[in-house]
């Protein structure tokens, strides 16, 4: 791939439109590449890649610990916390770990140095290989509220100096967790399906990528004969259509068995190869027109 180290984020707004299908297959086709699964709440890419030589890193956040013998009960920490993660119970502050944002404010506001911090695991990052694809997966522990620290660790460490193309599989929606995933992307692929739900949510991520001034294009998935409301939306708004993936029983079956379609069949290999070519062309075009990145 010519444009080295290019970061491509794949997002959709609506869930189940085919983000992982597109990300996994593009990363597979691109000879040497990096695949990063930022859907840390429900990561699925690793089920397809079945990576080997997996290394595990536990991701932690800092949680305050109160030394009761040093606490003078001034309540300053409780009053400071904007997240209501501290409550004053029986004249002592008590920490509610699940709602703590690890800002460190309580510790800084304590005049008695009675607050320290300890590391609390919230999930892990798994790094391994599948053929020539380097596969990075973030996995949040169930019951945790925010996977943002896991995404930060996925996207920042180790990856930063790589010269290979990077495919970032994003979570559904358009909230903070998606913004974190696309923040450093050079190009965004929006995957959609021909339903009114798909289009409604496409509009939202379309607004999001424009808000972040990210060059973007759309992949129309599950295309059937007849009118495609998602395609209409792209035409009306002049959004480049990067490719069309037909609604196809064989593709559906391979995908539901967590098989990488482009590794299994020539038909899908050529489909995703031409999609990757189009994406590369678009990225190259965007980097010449908009060379600030």
């Amino acid at each position: 791939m010519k444009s080295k180290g290019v970061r491509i984020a794949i997002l959709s707004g609506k869930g189940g439109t085919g983000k992982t299908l597109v990300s996994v297959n593009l990363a597979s086709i691109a000879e040497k590449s990096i695949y990063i699964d930022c859907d840390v709440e429900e990561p699925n890419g690793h089920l397809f890649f079945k990576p080997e030589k997996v290394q595990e890193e536990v991701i932690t956040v800092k949680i305050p610990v109160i030394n009761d013998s040093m606490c003078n009960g001034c309540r300053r920490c409780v009053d400071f916390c904007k997240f209501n993660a501290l409550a004053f119970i029986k004249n002592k502050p008590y920490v509610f770990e699940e709602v703590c944002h690890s800002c460190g404010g309580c510790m800084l506001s304590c005049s008695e140095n009675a607050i320290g911090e300890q590391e609390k695991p919230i999930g892990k990052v798994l790094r391994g290989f599948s053929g020539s694809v380097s596969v990075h997966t973030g996995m949040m522990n169930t019951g945790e509220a925010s996977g943002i620290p896991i995404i930060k660790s996925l996207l920042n460490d180790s990856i930063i100096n790589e010269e290979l193309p990077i495919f970032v599989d994003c979570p559904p929606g358009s909230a903070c967790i998606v913004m974190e995933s696309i923040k450093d992307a050079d190009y965004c692929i929006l995957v959609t399906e021909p339903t009114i739900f798909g289009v409604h949510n496409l509009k939202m991520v379309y607004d999001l990528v424009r808000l972040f001034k990210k060059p973007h294009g759309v992949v129309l998935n599950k295309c059937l004969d007849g009118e495609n409301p998602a395609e209409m939306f792209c035409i009306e708004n002049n959004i480049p259509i990067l490719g069309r993936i037909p609604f196809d029983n064989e593709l559906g079956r391979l995908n539901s068995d967590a098989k990488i379609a482009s590794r299994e069949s020539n038909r899908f290999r050529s489909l995703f190869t031409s999609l990757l070519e189009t994406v590369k062309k678009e990225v190259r075009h965007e980097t010449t027109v908009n060379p600030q990145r």
Partner: protein
Amino acid sequence: MKQLLILSGKGGTGKTTVASAFIKLSSAKVYADCDVDAPNLHLIMAQNTEPKRTDYFGMAIAEIDPDKCIECGLCKENCRFDAISNENGFKVEPFACEGCGVCEAFCPANAVSLKSAVAGELMLYVDSNTIFSTAQLKMGSGTSGKLVTEVKNQTKTTANPDTRIAIIDGSPGIGCPVIASLSGVDMVLIIAEPSISGISDMERIIKTSEKFRTKIGVCINKFDTNLANAEKIEKFCKEEGLLFTGRIPFDPLAVCAINNGQTIVDVDCPSGRAIREVFSNAMELLFKERDGVEA
């Protein structure tokens, strides 16, 4: 009022399709869409009335007054969210700021203040018969859990206390909006998809739901797209002692109905017929007294 929440873990398995059908079948007077990130229920549960709209204020976000800033850098140094940059003066990156207030507390020049901004919109449709609460989070806002709680509060404060049932459409994932939607519900119905991804995601949402000690039911949507995986889901439910409520077939007519703004029980189609069994099994669990105790 019994609250039934529809969840799935994985996105796109059919939460809104099932929720809208359940609203019709139960003649629910109260329903809500807690997928504030990507709400869709309003697209099929169209209301004739205009909703009552309320601005939703998220966390107050820091702002630096450049006239007061003495460029000491303490704010940037103490920010754990990398939300303060220093290119031509210190500035807060609003998307990264979580509103913790550390920079405000540290600023020796009182140059930082926390300002709350509109982070979304709550909508409440009320007509003589029904209450429908929904919301849309503003692009780039982070506090979806809090907005979900407000969507649920809107129904609680408006609904007649004698209301029998409330149907709540949830969001994908297992994080903060899902956790906020789970709090206080009587039962969760999980819409599973017969794929390896779907099974993995289902197991994670079940683990998350179990922490709330709510009743859990499972159904499989598009079961016939992969019968072997559908078997695995049913076996899993049996082993875990979870109520399996039924199977819904893949149905192109369902897509047509939805695209026409109808629920799958508004038209005669295979998925609409199958969901009736899922519905009656789910209702039985929802209204069943738990372990002999009044639920």
